[in-house]
Structure formats: C-alpha cells, structure tokens
C-alpha cells in the first residue's frame, strides 16, 4: 500500500505535530512532546481525566482531548503503550487539585505503565483512580471478563467520565460513572484485511482473500475465528448476536450504538452494516437512543469494523448529552 509518510521511525512525531497544528484552538503539547493536553487544562477544582495508548488508532486517543472530555492524553509508539513517564506527565498536566482518573484499555503494557505512573503521581501528592476498559467480547470468555481487552467502548467511557468530571463531581463519582459506562459496554471487531506498521513494512498477519476474522483485535491481533466472507447483512447479524448474547439485556433497555471503521473501510460500508445492525437490535426489543458511526477508533489501515453497544440508564443518558468540545464531534 502506498502511504503518506516521511520517515517510518518518525510516524508518531509527525502525526502529533500535524494534529496539534490543526487543532491548536482545542489542544496544546505538554513539555513532554508525547503528551497532548486540552487548552484549558488543568481546571482548578475539577477532576482531571486522562487516557493514553499506542498510536495508530486515530482519532483515538488524542482526538478525544478537549472540554468536558479528556484533559490529557499520553501518546505511545504505533500500537505500543506510552511510557510510564508520559502517563505521569499526562496526570500532572490534568491535575486541578481534585485528583485524576486514568481511563485506559486492558493491555499488558498500559497496565504496567499506568501502575508505575500512579506510583510516581502519588509521590507528587496527586490522588489517582483508574478504570480499565474490557469491552471486547471475543478476547476472553465472560467468566474471565477481567482478561478482555478494551476497544471502542473506551470512547463511551471517556465521554461519560469527561462529562461527569465537568459537573464538578468528586474523583470517586467520576471513577464510578466511567466504570459503569464500560461495564455496560460490549464490543466486537471483524477484520477483512490486515494492517502494516510502516517501520515493519509488511502486514503482521494474513487474511486470505475471501475470508474474514471474527473477533479481531485493535492491533492486528488475529481474530478468534476465521470464516468465509459473508454479505454485510450476515456479518452485521453475527456481530449483533455475539455482542447481545454476551450482554443479556432485558427487553426495553435503551442503548447507545457505536459503529467504527478500522481505518480502511469506507463510511458507506459502515452504513450498509448499520442498516442490519439497527434492525437486529430493534428486533430484540432494545431501544436505540443514539448511533455514532464513523472512524472513531481505527487500527492504521485495517479493513474492517467494530460494533459497540452500551446499555443506558438515566445518569448515562444525561452524561452523553453534556456538550463536548474536542476534535471529533460527539
């Protein structure tokens, strides 16, 4: 595949530079060039909201920096956790004196680096709470939910956590709201084509023509099942089934739906999937309150899509309605 890059080893630096130039009304760089900070942060008396993760998932993670969203984001190498130092610097940049919540995904590197950053922040006298996203249904069975990785449900978690913090809530209240959001999210990814790290130069795994990987991860981790490629209708039906069978929601539950492309799937195909996703969810007696559809959380140039369903309650509905200003419209 042909790409717009300069130096394969400088992809992250160049991405962040261009991002900050485009959105200087919303974000700025911290002293550490691997930390993106909302312009207004830190806000005195507000709980700081932080995330971080590997690059290559744009607009995640940096694109969700902004007002009533994330105060600071630690930026890692492509598909690789940010350093403990970057998480620590992000926590410091977000600290308005009321504590900082770190809302991140369940990956070995992120777990270790956040743990170390939390210890460093404690030495600065900053109280840190964490929520670890684990919404990806196919990454482990329901009995081992703590092993599941975090995927696009993180966006709902950030939105809810960021909105809750904006109401002036306490650190524990913000943590609890974000935890509830992710507890009520289930996601699935389907991959039709692999992605390539520019510095590696070739795809990390193959998806044979005519097949698809069900349960694919956000880093090109192969899926749990390889199947012949089906029609969009059949794929969407399968995605809804896997997500909702795991969810087990009572009829009448209101839900928010997020359909995200993985980087190289055109938007029109997401709409084609959503045509069936909407019908299938409604057919199960659930009420779709809102649908977000677009490239919200990508994996470089992977071909494919993810579906996330979040079960709502009054608090989550109120928080989803809080006006947000970040580089992605919410």
């Amino acid at each position, binding site marked *: 595949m042909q790409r717009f890059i300069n130096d394969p080893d400088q992809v992250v630096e160049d991405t962040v530079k261009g991002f900050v130039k485009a959105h200087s009304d919303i974000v700025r760089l911290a002293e550490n060039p691997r930390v993106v900070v909302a312009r207004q942060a830190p806000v005195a008396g507000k709980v700081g909201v932080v995330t971080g993760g590997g690059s290559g998932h744009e607009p995640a993670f940096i694109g969700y920096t902004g007002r009533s969203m994330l105060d600071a984001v630690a930026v*890692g190498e492509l598909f690789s956790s940010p350093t403990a130092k970057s998480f620590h610097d992000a926590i410091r940049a977000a600290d308005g004196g009321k504590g900082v919540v770190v809302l991140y995904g369940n990956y070995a590197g992120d777990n270790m680096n956040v743990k*170390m950053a939390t210890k460093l922040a404690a030495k600065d006298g900053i109280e840190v709470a964490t929520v670890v996203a684990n919404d990806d249904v196919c*990454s482990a069975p329901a009995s081992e939910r703590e092993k599941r990785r975090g995927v696009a449900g993180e966006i709902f978690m950030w939105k809810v956590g960021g909105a809750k913090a904006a109401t002036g809530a306490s650190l524990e209240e913000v943590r609890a709201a974000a935890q509830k959001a992710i507890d009520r999210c289930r996601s699935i990814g389907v991959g039709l084509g692999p992605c390539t790290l520019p510095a590696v130069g070739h795809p990390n795994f193959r998806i044979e023509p005519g097949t698809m990987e069900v349960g694919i991860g956000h880093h090109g981790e192969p899926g749990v099942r390889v199947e012949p490629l089906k029609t969009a209708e059949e794929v969407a039906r399968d995605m809804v089934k896997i997500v909702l069978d795991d969810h087990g929601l009572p009829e009448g539950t209101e839900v928010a739906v997020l359909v995200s492309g993985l980087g190289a799937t055109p938007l029109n195909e997401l709409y084609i999937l959503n045509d069936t996703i909407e019908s299938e969810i409604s057919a199960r007696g659930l009420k779709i309150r809102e649908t977000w559809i677009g490239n919200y959380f990508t994996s470089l140039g992977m071909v494919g899509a993810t579906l996330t369903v979040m079960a709502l309650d009054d608090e989550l509905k109120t928080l989803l309605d809080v006006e947000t200003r970040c580089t992605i419209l919410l």
Partner: protein
Amino acid sequence: MQTFDNTSSGAIVLSMAERIIENRAYLSEIDGKIGDGDHGVNMAKGFGMAAERLKGKDASLSQSLDTLGTVLMTEIGGSMGPLYGVMFTEFAETIEGVEKIDAATFGRMLHAGLSGIQSIGAAKVGDKTLLDTLVPGVEAFDKATADGKSFSDALDALVAAAEAGRDSTLNLVAKIGRASRLGERSLGVLDAGATSCAIILKELAQGAKAALANPS
C-alpha cells in the same frame, strides 16, 4: 575466587545493544507471527538510544546498566520498556558501588532483576514470555554456584539454560500479553520477549566471562 571489574566492564552494555540492533528484523519477524511485529523495532530503538548516550563515556557496568534501564523505562513504553527497564535498573542498583563483582553478587543482581519484573508484570513460567528464558537461566546459575562450580562455568550454565528456556516457548501456548488472545494458534512460534532475553543474557554472560579471563 573469580571476579570481574565493574568500572571497566561498561562495554558489555554496548555490545548487548549491538546484538539487539543486529537482531532488529529477526525479533520483529517472530513477534509479527503472534504479536504485532514491533518488538525488534522498539528494542533496537531503546538499546540504540542508550548506546548513543554511553559511547565514549567509559562508563562502569553499573552506570551503563542504569542508563539502559532508564532509557527503556522513560523512552520506550510498550510492555518491554517497563519490564526490561525495571530489570536493568535493578541490575544496576545491586552492583552499584561494588568494585569487584563475584558470583554471589552476580547472582544477587540476577535475582533483583527478576523480582523487579515480577513486581510489575503478572506472568509465570510457562506463560510464553521472557520469564521462560530468565527464570531457568537464573536457577541454573544458582545451582551451578551452589554445586561449587566456578563463576565462568556458572555463566555457561546460565546461557545454556536461558537458551533452552527460549526454545521451550516454541511449544507453549501464550497465556499473557497480546499473543495470549490466540490460544493454540500461538504454538510453534518462539516468544519474541523470550528470544530477546536470551540474547541479552548471553551477551551479559559472555562479556562477564571475557572480563574474568582478562582482569584489568
């Protein structure tokens, strides 16, 4: 009693960096089979940065290990940054201020590195990680010294056990990290972390052995 000199052995870290950089493509290739293929890239970046900082400095082994550990921990991230970062900074702390490193000190250094890794990671032996190289290596070194073998023989035992441990990951199912999502599909492939750990331990042991043979 065999010892080697801390002050004049900093070059061991430079040659370790050379080996890692040489193996950049190989480590990424095996990582790519069950991981995301960036292990060699990130390791070479970190070890290369540390080597740049150390070149021409004539640093001691403890200072060199500290520089390497700090670079990995603060600049590299991922899983390997904190894991190897902790290991090398623990190595450095154990031998800091020790002029002549004997087998007992070297053994304490290995254990401190291992404990550091275990304090931040959750892996066990058999999970298809770098611990499958490190733990048998450390145990073999312990056993050899307990059996009254010389320091240099114990270093040979360390390398042999570490490499056997690395090879054992071929037949292991990954239990932790990105490859664990693959279940049985992770069989038949070496673990990239176990492979880089074997390179590191071999270079460390061979460097120490050479320093034992040629005391300065």
